[in-house]
């Protein structure tokens, strides 16, 4: 029988001294050094934004393992559901900080992200925004809020510029567009952006001949499509959501309206799996210019492999945007943690501010924050549904296929 091991007087004194030092140094953040980075991930995983929130969550879930092998840092995710609600987002952010989150990531929706940003700033805990386009999030002078996602203005500008690139690449110059948009906050913001930017983008050869807004909950768009068809435009410029884009595309077929094409400057809907499933062959050749992942980037390959391993039934192409930006947000936090060597919020915020990440999943230049905490230079891609799935057709360095425009069935005006 073995005797229980006794602690010697020296060992006891050393332990007490160690504990004392840790307590004394805690306020200075030195005791938080190294160990594990606790990342509070806030996403709308239920209610009306659940589909996209859950898609973003897939990117968060794969991040710890990938970043451990990339950067050698340990990450613990603390997941919270904002329930697609601004107030819930705020209270969940408070709770995550109380429970010890060192950095927050989220939250897909601009309203919820703005609420979380207030909490992060008040509590002095860094927030890295994965997806949210409202410009004011990084215009408040916050010191702890960082965003690696284009602002609404950039989204419109990038999307419209790519339309010009598309026309150049396909040697087509449509003269007239009819503009249809979903009449919600997002659609109206995009419309304001388009109206402000279009006259200044002189490389675009077309003019908008009619603008038609429609109810986001519309179940029938026959009147709207009749009006758009009557405008005799060369192509349809569309800012939509998912369900309305399906209804609209079907209605175009029913009304035998075959313009040169359907192009979105960067709204959801057209690149989503449900759109292709619901419209079948009529999804082909629809074009959308959203922020997108670089299918040819080395890191995309790593993330895609990790994604497929964890979610064998899902297709990365339909999650790439959400997964990519959410992964990058956690990568920014992990990279800062590695450089700071500490989980102290201020040290983390300073390290995030000095971020310079070259290897990315998403299209754009290196991840570097400007003094406002915004990454400049995130790019969009011209994505076309070809052979049943979205494919990057522009910019050329990331292209998976050549753009097809106008639609093959187009027979001229």
């Amino acid at each position, binding site marked *: 029988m073995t005797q229980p091991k006794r602690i010697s007087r020296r060992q006891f004194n050393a332990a007490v001294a160690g504990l004392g030092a840790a307590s004394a140094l805690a306020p200075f953040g030195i005791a938080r050094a190294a160990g594990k980075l606790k990342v509070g991930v806030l996403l709308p995983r239920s209610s009306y934004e659940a589909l996209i929130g859950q898609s973003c969550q897939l990117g968060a879930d794969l991040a710890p393992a990938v970043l451990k092998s990339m950067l050698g840092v340990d990450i613990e995710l603390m997941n919270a559901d904002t329930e697609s609600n601004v107030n819930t987002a705020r209270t969940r952010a408070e709770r995550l900080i109380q429970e010890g989150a060192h950095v927050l990531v989220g939250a897909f929706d601009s309203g919820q992200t703005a609420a979380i940003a207030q909490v992060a700033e008040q509590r002095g805990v860094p927030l890295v925004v994965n997806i949210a386009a409202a410009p004011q999030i990084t215009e408040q002078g916050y010191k702890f809020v960082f965003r690696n996602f284009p602002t609404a203005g950039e989204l419109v500008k990038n999307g419209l510029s790519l339309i010009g690139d598309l026309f150049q690449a396909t040697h087509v110059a449509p003269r007239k567009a009819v503009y249809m948009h979903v*009449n919600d906050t997002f659609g109206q913001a995009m419309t304001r952006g388009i109206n402000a930017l279009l006259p200044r983008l002189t490389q675009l050869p077309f003019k908008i001949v009619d603008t038609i807004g429609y*109810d986001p909950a519309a179940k029938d768009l026959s009147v709207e499509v009749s009006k758009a068809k009557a405008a005799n435009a060369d192509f349809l410029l569309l800012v939509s959501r998912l369900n309305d884009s399906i209804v609209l595309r079907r209605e175009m077929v029913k009304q035998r309206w075959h313009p040169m094409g359907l192009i979105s400057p960067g709204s959801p809907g057209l690149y989503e799996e449900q759109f292709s499933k619901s419209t079948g062959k009529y999804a082909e050749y629809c074009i959308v210019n959203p922020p997108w992942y670089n299918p040819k980037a080395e890191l995309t390959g790593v993330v895609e492999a990790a994604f497929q391993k964890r979610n064998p039934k899902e297709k990365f192409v339909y999650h790439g945007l959400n997964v990519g930006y959410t992964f990058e947000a956690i990568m920014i936090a992990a990279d800062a943690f590695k450089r700071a060597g500490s989980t102290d919020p201020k040290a983390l915020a300073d390290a995030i501010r000095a971020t310079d990440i070259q290897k990315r999943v998403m299209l754009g230049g290196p991840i570097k924050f400007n003094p406002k905490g915004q990454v400049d230079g995130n790019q969009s891609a011209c994505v076309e549904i070809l052979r049943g799935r979205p494919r990057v057709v522009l910019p050329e360095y990331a292209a998976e296929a050549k753009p097809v425009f106008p639609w093959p069935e187009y027979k001229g005006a």
Partner: protein
Amino acid sequence: MSATLVANVVISGVLTGLLYGLMALGLSVIFGVVRVVNFAHGEMMTIAMYAAVLLFGAFRLDPILAALPVAALFFAIGYALQAGLINPFITRPEHSQFILLVAVATILTNVMLMVFGPDARSVQTDYQLDSWAIGQIIVDKARVYAALCALATTAGLFAFFRFSRTGTAIRACADNHLGARIVGLDVKHLYALTFGLGAACVAIAGCMMTLLVEVAPSLGPSYTLLGFVIVIVGGLGSMPGALLGGVLIGVSEALAGLFIDPSAKSMISFALLIVVLLFRPQGLLGRTT
């Protein structure tokens, strides 16, 4: 604005309105006889839409054919719902009936969310995206089939109430509840039968609606509201009124979308509702009580 465009829009409005009318018909029939306002009407239609989608997925059964078994199933469910749950509330205050049916609606929506998830689902038939071109006028095939089905169902229901003994008995119940009981009619059974017929109507409307609209659990409340607007405009309890209300709402929404703004479509239908309530509170074809 060309006459062709206006004609296209009006035809589309009439066809859609007939389908709306069929949906509202069930609501009107139930209220006309049982005097219960079915606040779960839209949710019931959404379930019928899911039934059509499931039958299409499993057996490639066209929603027009699926309407028969789904209507039979809904007749049975409606009968059981009235006999088992609603009958005890017939003599209770209206707010009790209201709360009961709102509770049923909430339960149905959440069950659909749990079973089917939040994603929209649809059927894809061969003719769904086809249309006929008559000169420059384009007529949507699916809408025509749905409208014809709505007319046939309404005619069948009208004939049942007019010419069958059971239908006559149901009308007697509706006209004079006490008198019907005194002459020995089984009022509870007739009420359940009526609720079953109303549910069957909404089932047929739901199956037809899958030809035009994707189904998601969140659809229910908007259809319930639309149903109310239609039956109040047409006249609560009047079968021709439901069809007329549906067509009026369909056409006025379409024309508002064309001449004013597409976003103003719902506004116009509610404006029409207010006008009817102000100048003919019993509805266009309703009877004063």
